[in-house]
């Protein structure tokens, strides 16, 4: 080793991993028990790694191909969103919510706007509610397409084809949303008591066309992988989330539903016009990688159904309650409230405390990925490293939401 080279000090997470190895060895459970020293290797996956979907960092202890221990390290995308809320008015803060979980921005805005509406006692118009459901479900579809596409890409080059097909379809959806809001991903579309713009001319027929095309495309994707023995072998029976895990760690969304838990806030804590709509809560019963993939595919279909129903039921009327446009400054009465909303990844909500001023006193996010990520050490340990990648892909993390 050259003299001038100084090994950098390992950070807290790596130190913890090394400490755990030492402890396991001391207990006689380490793999050096058989007399071979240094059998375990601490590998630092991320924050730049092809399959961590963002800047997630996993400090992985490997014993050969086997994952012994995982320590997730987050915070590389921390943008102080909770601090920013202290000096933004409620209205100014809407675009910042967009950027938390950027894959399903519409749903995030929705959760925030609902919380503020509840605090301030604003009731959105009925047409706006339907438009919110349509955009929320379109956003959910776009998000699930990204989730499934990138997950299959983790499994194989085959997935790269899936990624391109799915991103192409997502682009159709984003085109619709862009026409509606003016932006492709960071919509800034929801307003307190309604939405920013009414539907443009001809938008509903375009949306209907797409909804008619989507089921065929989804069938095509399923035919690509569902019948593939290698895919089944790599996904079935691996990374099982038990119902105890769901209870203990607060797992929500498709990950919980894949474990036969019919927890869907659209049903269990109904908001907006969901009680009037007819849709299934998709569940599966094994809770493994394959089931999580299946649940997402089923939910794509359900979302199509919901959007079609909303288009049929869409009432006429204003899209903004009260004045012609949303109030720039609102001052909710002092108090606090939390509203959870069914994001594509699970329960996403904001807890807001108001002190009666124009700024939120405290704003706290409840992010589904943050809770799901907590399960990683338990879920990945004991699997092969290739499985670990597949499992982490199937959990579908968005680091923007985790790190805030």
């Amino acid at each position, binding site marked *: 080793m050259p003299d001038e080279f100084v090994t950098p000090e390992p950070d807290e997470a790596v130190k913890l991993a090394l400490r755990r190895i030492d402890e396991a060895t001391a207990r006689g459970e380490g793999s050096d028990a058989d007399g071979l020293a240094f059998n375990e290797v601490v590998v630092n996956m991320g924050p730049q790694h092809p399959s961590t979907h963002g800047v997630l960092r996993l400090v992985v202890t490997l014993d050969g191909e086997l994952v012994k221990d995982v320590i997730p390290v987050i915070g590389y995308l921390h943008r102080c969103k909770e601090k920013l809320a202290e000096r933004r008015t409620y209205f100014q803060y809407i675009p910042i919510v967009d950027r938390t979980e950027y894959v399903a921005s519409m749903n995030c805005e929705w959760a925030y706007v609902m919380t503020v509406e509840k605090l301030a006692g604003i009731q959105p118009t009925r047409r706006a509610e339907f438009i919110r459901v349509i955009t929320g479900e379109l956003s959910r579809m776009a998000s699930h397409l990204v989730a499934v596409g990138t997950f299959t890409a983790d499994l*194989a080059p085959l997935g790269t084809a899936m990624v391109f097909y799915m991103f192409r379809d997502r682009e159709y959806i984003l085109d619709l949303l862009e026409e509606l809001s003016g932006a492709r991903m960071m919509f800034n579309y929801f307003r307190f008591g309604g939405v920013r713009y009414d539907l443009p001319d001809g938008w509903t027929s375009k949306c209907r066309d797409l909804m008619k095309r989507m089921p065929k495309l989804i069938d095509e994707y399923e035919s690509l992988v569902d019948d*593939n023995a290698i*895919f089944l072998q790599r996904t079935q029976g691996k990374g*099982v989330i038990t119902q105890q895990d769901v209870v203990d760690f607060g797992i929500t969304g498709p990950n919980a539903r894949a474990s*036969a838990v019919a927890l869907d806030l659209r049903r269990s804590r109904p908001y907006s016009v969901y009680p009037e709509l007819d849709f299934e809560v998709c569940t599966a019963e094994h809770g493994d990688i394959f089931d999580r993939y299946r649940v997402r595919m089923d939910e794509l279909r359900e979302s199509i159904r919901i959007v079609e129903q909303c288009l049929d039921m869409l009432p006429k009327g204003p899209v903004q309650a009260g004045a012609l446009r949303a109030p720039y400054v609102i001052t909710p009465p002092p108090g606090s409230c939390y509203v959870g909303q069914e994001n594509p990844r699970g329960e996403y909500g904001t807890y807001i405390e108001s002190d009666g001023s124009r700024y939120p006193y405290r704003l706290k996010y409840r992010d589904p990925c943050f809770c799901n990520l907590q399960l990683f050490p338990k879920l990945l340990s004991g699997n092969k*490293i*290739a499985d670990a990648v597949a499992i982490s892909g199937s959990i579908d993390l968005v680091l923007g939401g985790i790190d805030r």
Partner: protein
Amino acid sequence: MDTLLAILRAVVFVVIAYAVVFVAALVNIVFERRVLAFMQDRHGPNRTGPHGVLQSIADAFKMMGKEDFRPLLADPYLFTLAPVMVMIGAVAVQLVIPYTGGITATGLDIGIIFLVAITSFTTLSILLGGWSSHNKYSLIGALRGAAQMISYEIPMILGLIVVAMVVGSLNVTDVVAAQSGYRWIAFYAPFTFLIFYIASIAELNRGPFDLPESESELVSGYGTEYSGMRFGMFFLNEYAGLTIMSMVAVTLFFGGWQGPFAGAIQILGVSWIGLVWFFVKTYVLVFALVWIRLSLPRLQVDQLMGFAWKILIPLGLVNILATAAVMLWVPSWRWGLAIFSWVALLAFVGLFDPILKRRLRKQRERQPVVSA
């Protein structure tokens, strides 16, 4: 004088072999990217030259212009040696392959053994490169690579033994000659070809067997620390490997350079149309390799090893025994072999997937339900 000529001849053939490797690699890169783009419903490289054909030349120059970087803790000698050595296999294999009638570097009598022996050089350099990089991803990738390539060499050899048995010679030129008149070995030993082909995909480290550099878990496996032209050498070798392995397959199983009018134009004792046939056949197989890569998910380490040791090797051994039995006891053994091999092929192709899926379904039924 003769010695001088022999040396000149040797130099010319080595130059040709290197040229084939480089040209094939550059062509294959563009070819694969275009085919992938077509299958994935996008455009692919189409800016550099007409239809993007010059893309990989531009990439090659870009790679040469990059900083020649070596990690401080990497072993300086082995780290440099590995990318230099990696080409040996691809170049040396060509020395026994007849490109066409009249162009063969050497009619080595142990040609088939030479083929197998020399392709192992790639394994060695992958192992060297991965180990000397002083990187955990590289090390894991290299060890995976070594394990995989050593395992899959065995079914490959088992396939080649059948070829040697059928032809009665280990000389590659004899193998081609024995297939004249469309008596291609692939026609009456298709099952052997299947075993050989699966093993050769694994030897090439390509999908679905691309574990040594599975980019979703190991960043880029053994090549993680390499950049610039050092990385370029690994990359070129991988893509040249497509053509080289297809050349071997064409020579041993598809009659080599022979085809309609193959010997029609003879200039300087070389059949030039045969050359065209040789490369047409080669590129059909290259296309198949690209296609397979895109349509199958990657196997996992245990599944990969299991497939080699539990399925391919036993089948290869049974295949050798059956072929020997047919050749010994069946009077017109070519017909007997053809019938046996086609039946085996169809049975394997027709039964393997359903049996696997049935097992998976059963496993799925037994799998505990989480709510229970």
